[in-house]
């Protein structure tokens, strides 16, 4: 058990920075905007606030478990993970660093703000060859947060992280 007096919010955020999304392992929960806040209580317990991406996202339970594990590795055991609904999660919270990492991983990052109402999103850039000559195959991809596209130039199918 660590001396709780040595725990700071910065330290906690540093630990939580290492927790990744099980479906998109290149992104941390901070990159995705899932991590909303962390509070250190007077009794030494820690409360982590996360927001679900999609209501039925099966990754959320695993993320909560991984948060507990990451903190437990640093000797913090009195942990509460609280899910907050409001304000509703949006891809607008995704960090620029997160978008860069997504593209590198082969998933096209959201290209518009969540208020963008046109669908299918035009000119989605292929993460492999950067062509904008792409077309929508399916509005629903391998997970709720993605749509399936195909590049007309390099012919590769790819996932597009939808604006939400």
């Amino acid at each position, binding site marked *: 058990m660590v001396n709780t007096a040595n725990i700071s919010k910065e330290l906690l955020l540093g630990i939580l920075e290492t927790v990744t999304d099980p479906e998109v392992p290149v992104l941390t929960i901070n990159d995705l905007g899932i991590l909303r806040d962390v509070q250190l209580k007077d009794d030494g317990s820690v409360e982590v606030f996360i927001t679900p991406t999609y209501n039925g996202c099966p990754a959320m339970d695993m993320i909560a478990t991984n948060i507990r594990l990451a903190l437990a590795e640093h000797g913090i055991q009195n942990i509460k993970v609280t899910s907050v609904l*409001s304000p509703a999660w949006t891809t607008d919270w995704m960090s620029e660093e997160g978008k860069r990492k997504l593209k590198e991983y082969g998933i096209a990052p959201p290209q518009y703000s969540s208020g963008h109402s046109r669908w299918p999103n035009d000119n989605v850039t292929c993460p492999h060859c950067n062509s904008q000559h792409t077309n929508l195959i399916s509005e*629903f991809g391998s997970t709720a947060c993605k749509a399936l596209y195909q590049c007309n130039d390099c012919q590769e199918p790819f996932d597009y992280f939808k604006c939400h």
Partner: protein
Amino acid sequence: MNNPLINYLLHLADTTLILSHRNSEWCGHGPILEQDIALTNISLDLLGQARLFYQYAAQLINESKKAEGVKAPSPQGERVGDEVNEDTLAYLRTERQFKNLLLAEQPNSDWGQTILRQYLYSQFQQLLFQQLQHHNDEHIAAIATKSLKETNYHVRWSSEWVIRLGDGTAESKQRMLHAINELWCYTGEMFIAADYELHLNIDFNDINNRWTEKVNTVFAEAALILPSGGGGAVFMQTGGKTGTHTEHLGYILADLQYLQRAYPNSQW
């Protein structure tokens, strides 16, 4: 327990759970892989919404039981002496306690019927959540705001399919017309307030008018005809909101609840 808000939350939760279950029956059976995945994604969204409504209902039930000092089991799906939670509400209530829309429990026949059922419901849900996102109950407003983003997607996907099938081949059109005949009599229930809905600040007339307008637009584009041309009286079946269901719900619950009934408290 006669708290209108609790009953309303159970109605919303039951409807999304049962429709989610119906759609999930398509898993592995969709006409093509992409659409199989699309429908199961929608299932997952609906299940997520159901969980939020059940969780909030459970919280209110537990609080009110505490306040009333109730010890005996009430018909809300709890074991004696236990607190309720999302699981006991979904797994341990009987058919007559479920308050889902009849539309949601109608069995899957072909793809066209499944698409139409989804569209008719999603179009309603979109208009409902647009209202509920401004509801004076903050928690309901938060769930509606969050869910609406998903619902918008469901409406777009299902309405495009209604148009594609309605304005498709002679065969697909025939199937859509058949589906309309099968499902239309379950749509009226959406706009007829149950007792517990009367004082929750929901404008059912407004939703009904907007829904009819939207559905007419999509059907016109799909070259589909409404029963009796969209006007005149069509018999509407009601009862789901107050627990009087078609025979299909019992079979769903037998499937859905079997494990928890046979092996109480078993964990995944």
